[in-house]
């Protein structure tokens, strides 16, 4: 789950890391009030879950409260990469002496969080790491032991930073590492971490990403501290009707799991497929044989007839879909006969002939003999494990193309 900058700053603040006296505003008048309170030059920053704010004009400087209000009004109406801002952040224009970079990310290979520090702040860290690896300090932290300050100190000192800068930056990186673990983050980044003219350090911008699986146990932070609503899911894109409907069908019944996505798919062959790895393999197999999938889907965990039926109906009701391919890798838990019942029922309920509508049924495994009997009765073409996922997908593509020809 991604956070807006104003939320990320709040998280950083809760961890005891100094920030500027910023204000989050949703109207121009609010922006004027915050600027008046700051009583000096300010920066107005668009609060949008997208990169490239600066380039798009989403960051503006103002010397007076009126100017701040004008800029806020403009930015509040400014769409950036297709997204409207949730508000603006009004921040005192800092007198920055130097910018640093600090972050904590997961290292999946080491299976430990990795602390990163660079005195080349405010820029793309990956570029710095590639071109000047010695400018970047890094070290893993333990998942079992607490994070000690000296670990952060070593990372910073390795880049040559010393003196009061080292002593000021050390607790900031250590606290960032602790908050990363405490709040189940997948990314906790302060960029830039600014050293001001008076020698103090403040977080000028922060990026946080929380693991989806941990949202349930981070209610205190999400709902109480940040006041983020339950339905504010922040998907990368707006879910389609198809995606919303499939999700609702899945949620209505605890038996089995179905998923459906059609973002980025525009084809004519509906896919009722599974399970996780099988779906990936089959989607590739359809595309690589010239087929055009109308959607992606997953069936798993032995769903009920109603659930399989619900997914197939949603796929069949998508614009331009006339046939579906029902295919899975060999099943051991999900039952062939139950899925067969579900997809045939979907056809019947929509007034369609299963034999015409189901291009191919390739689900081998548990209860396959029972399933094949059902498919025989309705004249649906099916195959067992002797036909590979590739060939099954190929048959479905050939059928739909034969139709078009």
């Amino acid at each position, binding site marked *: 789950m991604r956070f807006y900058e104003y939320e990320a700053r709040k998280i950083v603040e809760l961890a005891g890391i100094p920030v500027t006296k910023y204000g989050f505003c949703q109207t121009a008048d609010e922006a004027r009030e915050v600027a008046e309170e700051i009583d000096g030059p300010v920066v107005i920053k668009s609060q949008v879950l997208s990169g490239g704010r600066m380039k798009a004009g989403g960051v503006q400087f103002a010397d007076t409260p009126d100017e701040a209000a004008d800029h806020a009004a403009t930015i509040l109406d400014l769409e950036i990469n297709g997204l409207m801002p949730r508000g603006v952040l009004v921040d005192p224009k800092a007198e920055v002496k130097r910018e640093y970079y600090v972050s904590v990310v997961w290292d999946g290979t080491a299976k430990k969080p990795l602390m990163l520090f660079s005195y080349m702040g405010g820029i793309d860290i990956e570029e710095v790491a590639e071109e000047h690896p010695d400018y970047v300090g890094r070290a893993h932290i333990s998942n079992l032991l607490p994070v000690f300050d000296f670990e952060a100190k070593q990372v910073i000192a390795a880049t040559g930073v010393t003196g009061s800068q080292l002593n000021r930056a050390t607790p900031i990186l250590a606290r960032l590492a602790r908050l990363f673990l405490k709040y189940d983050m997948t990314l906790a980044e302060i960029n830039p971490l600014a050293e001001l003219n008076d020698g103090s350090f403040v977080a000028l911008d922060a990026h946080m990403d929380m693991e989806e699986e941990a949202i349930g146990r981070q209610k205190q932070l999400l709902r109480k501290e940040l006041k983020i609503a339950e339905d504010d899911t922040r998907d990368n894109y707006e879910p389609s009707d198809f995606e919303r409907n499939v999700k609702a069908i899945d949620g209505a019944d605890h038996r089995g799991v179905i998923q459906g996505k059609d973002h980025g798919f525009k084809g004519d062959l509906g896919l009722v497929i599974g399970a996780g790895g099988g779906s990936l393999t089959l989607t590739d197999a359809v595309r690589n044989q010239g087929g055009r999938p109308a959607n992606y889907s997953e069936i798993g965990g032995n769903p*009920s*007839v*109603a659930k399989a039926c619900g997914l197939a*109906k949603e796929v*069949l*009701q998508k614009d331009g879909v006339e046939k579906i391919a029902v295919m899975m890798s060999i099943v051991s838990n999900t*039952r062939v*006969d*139950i899925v067969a*019942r579900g997809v*045939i*029922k979907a056809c*019947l*309920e*929509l*007034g369609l002939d299963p034999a015409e509508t189901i291009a191919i049924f390739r689900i081998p495994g548990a209860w396959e003999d*029972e399933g094949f*009997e*059902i498919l025989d*009765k*309705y004249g649906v073409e099916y195959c067992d494990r002797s036909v590979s996922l590739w060939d099954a997908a190929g048959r479905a593509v050939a059928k739909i193309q034969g139709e078009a020809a």
Partner: protein
Amino acid sequence: MSSETLNKVFIDVEIDEPAKSDIKLATELEEVCPVGIFKATEAGTEIQVPALDECVLCNLCIETAPAGSIRIIKLYEQ
């Protein structure tokens, strides 16, 4: 596209008297069926038609009831 809900496409369940009116058996059947086909009422067992096609062929109802009094009919065999 118009859509309706169909029931009894694949499975039907028949229960004979006097087993059908046996209130104790009705409670047992309701408990044993994993997909909720049987409901215990004051009159005995009531078949829940929308649940019929969910039958997983576990035969637990057949084992619970007196021999021969419950039949599961696979409509796709006919």
